């Protein structure tokens, strides 16, 4: 969930991070005395920097019954500290010519600013202050609660696809906080309080549970003195370890159907629980390759279902590997005109079985590895991109070395590894199948 209206949290493909011969980012790393990690990725293209602070705490850390608190707290971090009154944080950054924002996921909450490089010290001081000195007025807490409820009405409750996705996740992660919406369930959002938000803040917001990531026209040598005089002044605190409830293995097929009269175009979605990068590096490498081999318009599924059989107008695959616990692999398809979702589902299942039966060729694997390694060069073709990518990896449990050498690691995969991952994880009953379809008008 994102604080700002127009900012899109792009699905940064896990693949887009590397180059074969070199490290992807050539990032520099240090740890402050209070335990805060510092990572700097020098990119000397424009005299500007993107400054991010990531907390290793998100919606999955919320106690049962107060869903939405982590995201609500993210909003409240803009509601005032002793030196920066409510509403002034973004205004100060904009007066620097910069932009700022924040976002919350299940595993993390992140705050960032892009500013001219000479303003870096100023934003570091402001960000350090709101790590443990938040002082919102209760009237601002109340009006912000209305804002997050409007955010839910706008982004979830007005979007049938988002509502379906919410219910699919709930079925995919029974008894695990990943099954809960980041923004919260509406009845619980109505009960969001400053008391609960403050408790979450005190428990999880601490330098030793935060990662500072800066990309742009600077170096670790320049950043360290600034970091020591701002974040370095904060005390290390006792932070609990992440303890999440376990999701049992559930047999059987789960299907979620959502029908509405105003839907004109049906959608078919299958969401699968698969290993995250942190849990199983080798499987995650294979799943990244599978995303590339199955998805896209030159991928196996599009070529079979859209081009040859003409049963779909689109089909795609996505692996979201950055997660502390289980990750997801999702297949999407839109039926061709006149094709039922039942028929489409059967065709997707058969197409996957056919691919599994024949496997992939060495040449196919080699080409996929090559294009993923080529794409990794683009990871440095923006200011904020490198800080975003490195941050996602670190707060979901990877080492900097894992992130830097990912493309090289792809070369170790054989075609059998990839076919094996297809059979084990993608052709699986352990998923949830969603149907979004038009509802027949009642007579």
């Amino acid at each position: 969930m994102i604080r700002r209206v127009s900012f899109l949290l792009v699905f940064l493909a896990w693949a887009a991070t590397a180059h074969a011969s070199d490290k992807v980012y050539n990032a520099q790393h240090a740890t402050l005395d209070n335990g805060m990690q510092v990572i700097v990725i020098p990119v000397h293209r424009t005299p500007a920097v993107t400054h991010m602070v990531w907390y290793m705490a998100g919606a999955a850390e919320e106690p049962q019954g107060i869903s939405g608190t982590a995201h609500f707290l993210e909003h409240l971090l803009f509601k005032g500290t002793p030196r920066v009154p409510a509403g002034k944080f973004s205004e100060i950054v904009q007066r620097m010519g910069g932009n700022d924002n924040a976002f919350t996921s299940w595993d993390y909450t992140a705050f960032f600013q892009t500013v001219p490089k000479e303003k870096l010290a100023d934003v570091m001081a402001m960000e350090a202050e709101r790590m443990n000195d938040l002082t919102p007025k209760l009237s601002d807490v109340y009006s912000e609660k209305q804002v997050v409820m409007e955010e839910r009405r706008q982004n979830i409750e007005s979007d049938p696809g988002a509502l379906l996705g919410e219910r699919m996740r709930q079925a995919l992660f029974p008894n695990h906080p990943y099954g809960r919406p980041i923004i919260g369930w509406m009845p619980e959002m109505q009960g969001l309080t400053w008391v609960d938000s403050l408790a979450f803040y005190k428990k999880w917001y601490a330098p030793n549970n935060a990662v500072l990531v800066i990309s742009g026209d600077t170096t670790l040598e320049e950043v360290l003195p600034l970091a020591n005089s701002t974040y370095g002044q904060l005390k290390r605190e006792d932070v609990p370890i992440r303890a999440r409830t376990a999701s049992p293995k559930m047999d059987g097929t789960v299907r979620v159907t959502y029908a509405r009269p105003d839907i004109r175009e049906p959608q078919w979605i299958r969401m699968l629980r698969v290993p995250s990068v942190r849990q199983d590096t080798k499987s995650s490498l294979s799943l990244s390759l599978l995303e590339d081999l199955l998805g896209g318009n030159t991928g196996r599924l599009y070529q079979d279902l859209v081009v040859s059989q003409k049963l779909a107008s689109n089909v795609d695959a996505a692996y979201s590997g950055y997660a502390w616990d289980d990750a997801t692999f999702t297949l999407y398809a839109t039926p061709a005109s006149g094709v039922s979702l039942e028929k489409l589902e059967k065709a997707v299942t058969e197409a996957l079985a056919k691919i599994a039966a024949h496997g992939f060729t060495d040449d196919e694997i080699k080409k996929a590895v090559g294009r993923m390694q080529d794409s990794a060069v683009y990871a440095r073709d923006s200011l904020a991109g490198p800080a975003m990518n490195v941050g996602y990896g670190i707060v979901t449990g990877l080492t900097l070395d894992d992130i830097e050498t990912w493309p090289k690691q792809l070369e170790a995969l054989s075609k059998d590894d990839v076919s094996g991952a297809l059979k084990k994880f993608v052709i699986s009953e352990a998923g949830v199948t969603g149907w979004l379809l038009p509802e027949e008008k009642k007579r």
Partner: protein
Amino acid sequence: MRVFLCAFCLVMTLSSHAFAKVLDIQEFVTEKGIKVWLVPDQSIPVIALSFAFETGTERNPPAKQGLARLLSNTLDEGAGDINAKNFQARLRDHAIDFSFEAGRDVFSGNLRTLSRHKEEAFKLLKLAVTAPRFEAEAIERMRAANLSSIKSNIGDADWIASRLLFDRIYKGHPYALNSGGTLASMKALTAGDLKGEWKRIATRDRLYVGITGEVTIEEAKKIVDDTFGTLPEKSTEKPLEKATMPQVGKPVFYAKDMPQTVLWMAWDGISVSDPDYYAGVVADYIFGGGGFSSRLMAEIREKRGLTYGIQSDLVNNDYADRYVVMASLQPANVAPTIEAVNKIADEMKSKDVSPDELTAAKEYLTGSLPLGLSSSARIASTLVSLQLNRRPVTALDDYRAKIEAVTPADIRRVTARLLNGQPQVVLVGAKPDGLELETLTSIPNAETVTKQ
């Protein structure tokens, strides 16, 4: 290419006010008469090239709505002796990003490649431009993807609101049509239409190119003439009439089962060549364009919690300029929000902005210039939009001075023009309370072609 579902594809061609001083632009015209702006950059091994023909969907007649869009989806589906599948595979296997886009006034293309794959990239670009195949298989596949996209749009409140708004505020002009096509018009398009459309669009006299990356001026000249040099020299198309702002009527309402109402408000606008344009940019920032700091956000979101977001935009096209405000709210909050927007508008018109507010706006607008130009693709497309807006190559330096020169009196004058009279209001979703509405039950130019 794939056709993406996009609620805002139709919405707006924003004026490009994010220029930077940091760019060292080389301006030249090639031997074949093509206008190019180049920014050599050795910092990463990447080359980005953007180009635009200054003509777009506005030329598609009602019965052929969606023609330029379908063309943009089909041009990269096979060219020369390379079929669609192999063409796409060669792009993908060399990590080349390449796509076309059909706008109201411009038909553009964007290419990004690693330097080491540049020969392949420019070979494929040239083939797509000079020898597209328009194979039946690819056309049918792209038609199906477009029909699917139109059907999805018909269920999307933001898209419906923009469709209804354009139908009203550009009444009688081609801008009122659906550039993505109607279900009926999309079904009727033929290979012959696509060939004719590309012939109509692709002439050298109205082509603008922007390049950045590991490339020299000599190389750039060669690439551009080699790619585009054989296209016909001149177009015979005449300029269109301007679309005047029609008489504003009652708020237009389209009911949809959802918890909120999408609100759009539109006034007449000012053009990018207007002497007051830069005053307009500053005024818009203060009123509703400036994110969390704007007056609309401060009052309607931050203070009253009525919405997740409200913003304004200067919408500039070749033949019409409008000023719009948009938000999503609970139905009971629509009337109070319209009232609040009108009140904030009246204040802008009747009282000078404070010196501090004005300084803050100028600091952002001038300071953010270089930050917006941090990726190759952004730099290349900015080089093209500057040319399309008829800016001189010194526009980046001029921009700072022009913003700095805006006074409180300028803001009042331009606000009186931008927020002049009653806006046309469009509402989609839950039925709002306390407003006299014109209720619509069908969406113009969505399923079938609507009579003008």
